[in-house]
């Protein structure tokens, strides 16, 4: 069964195609603001403009025609409303054109399921770190439970915001990672509350330090402090759930220092680290196709529904396929 997945929760519009055996294509086009952060309406304008081309490219790379598609999946939650609506409209249009079923899927869970499928990890604790999301998730009692999360902002947005204060355009992550290589440690707050992390206080602290310390030192200390917090709560989730696999995913998983720290933590406690290929860590259509197919196989039949849910929580989704 050929499944076309459409992703549009934030700044990326993506289309991916897979069947039970293979992922055939994974095309992305991301909105990049000239200045500031992501403006939801401008991002959705971008998505509307590129949607046709992205889907066409995904089909041609897979060597398929629209009529070969058997199932259309789209991310309907969580995310920016205007952006989600473009993905939903695109998916609805295609499903109606080819008269095939449509399946809405949760974006965060798609990140986990594509990792499980590609890397064959069985029952991981997932450290999901992206712009808006920072969650530590483990499967328990029929749902993906959130064991720890940020109490305020996502770690990607945190890094990008700091970069913006320093006059670096979006996305600031790669630039900060590079600068950090020459940095030295400056003390920053280390904020863990129970299992959760909080980042806004550290952001304010960093902003106050901006012109008083070397920029590279702040980049280094930011990474060392915040990643240590994330790895610490991940380790606690592993200890608490008694699982021994860690899946690191989301856009911030591209950071090599974070990967290294997760790797060291896992090897010290006899756990195994899994990190998907970068194109499956960032927002992408293939993961939506993978989850859509999995849900369809499990017998989930949805009425033809293209409503979106900006604030759906990971643990609100009933998991019927595990």
């Amino acid at each position: 069964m050929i499944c076309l997945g459409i992703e549009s929760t934030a700044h990326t519009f993506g289309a991916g195609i897979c069947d039970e055996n293979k992922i055939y294509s994974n095309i992305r086009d991301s909105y990049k603001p000239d200045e500031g952060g992501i403006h939801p309406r401008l991002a959705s304008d971008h998505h509307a403009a590129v949607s046709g081309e992205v889907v066409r490219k995904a089909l041609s790379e897979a060597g398929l025609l629209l009529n070969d598609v058997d199932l259309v999946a789209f991310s309907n939650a969580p995310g920016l409303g205007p952006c989600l609506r473009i993905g939903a409209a695109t998916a609805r249009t295609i499903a109606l054109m080819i008269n095939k079923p449509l399946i809405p899927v949760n974006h965060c869970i798609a990140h986990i399921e594509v990792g499980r499928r590609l890397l064959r990890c069985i029952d991981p604790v997932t450290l999901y770190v992206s712009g808006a999301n920072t969650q530590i998730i483990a499967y328990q009692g029929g749902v993906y439970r959130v064991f720890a999360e940020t109490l305020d902002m996502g770690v990607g947005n945190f890094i990008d915001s700091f970069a913006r204060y320093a006059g670096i355009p979006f996305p600031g992550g790669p630039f900060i990672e590079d600068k950090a290589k020459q940095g030295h440690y400056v003390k920053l707050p280390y904020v863990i509350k129970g299992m959760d992390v909080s980042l806004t206080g550290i952001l304010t602290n960093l902003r106050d330090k901006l012109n008083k310390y070397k920029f590279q030192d702040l980049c280094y200390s930011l990474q060392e402090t915040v990643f240590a917090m994330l790895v610490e709560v991940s380790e606690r989730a592993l200890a608490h759930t008694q699982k021994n696999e860690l899946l690191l995913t989301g856009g911030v998983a591209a950071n090599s220092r974070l990967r290294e720290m997760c790797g060291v933590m896992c090897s010290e406690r006899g756990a195994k680290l899994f990190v998907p290929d970068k194109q499956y860590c960032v927002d992408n259509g293939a993961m939506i196709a993978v989850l859509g197919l999995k849900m369809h196989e499990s017998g989930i039949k949805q009425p033809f529904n293209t409503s979106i849910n900006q604030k759906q929580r990971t643990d609100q989704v009933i998991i019927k396929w595990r």
Partner: protein
Amino acid sequence: MEVIAQGAESILYRVGDKLVKHRVKKRYRINDIDDLLRKSRTRSEAKIIKKAGELINTPKLLKIDEQDNKILMSFIDGEVLRDVINDLSRSELIMVCNQIGESIAKLHNASIIHGDLTTSNMILKDELVYFIDFGLSEVSKKIENKAVDLRVLKEALNSKHYLISNKVWKLITEQYVRVAIDGCAVIDRLKSVELRGRYKKSCQ
């Protein structure tokens, strides 16, 4: 010497009727952060165990080794509540929840925030609930911090004991409000703390 647990941040050894909590080096983080965290957490934990021990059931603090980040305390030879709570009879469950609510209230009345209230950090021995692991504890009078302390427990119950969490939570908070000086204010604040959480049902 017998290793009885490897938690996320420390190794616990049993030596006879004593327990050594050794905060081990974490190689994933830089020495500056690692030294600072281990030192400050060991010191603060020892101080708080001592104070808490005068109020509720906890291990007794015997010795602190600041050089090696080790704490020596008495060993509570019981069962981790996480493993047994689902199997308790109704009357046992009420007795246990009352103790938990009362103990949290007594800590809060003394401005001690446990910081990691989960059923993994409670030991049941001879019908008494002992609180352990004050590694993330702090001293604070703030209603906000007390509310966040309770939220950690609520989340832990929901994620680990979802079948009985509502009943357990109700029993614990009823007793908490009876004993805590500003119990009602804390429970009120908890509601607004939860509303602040990301993507909560109640704010949709």
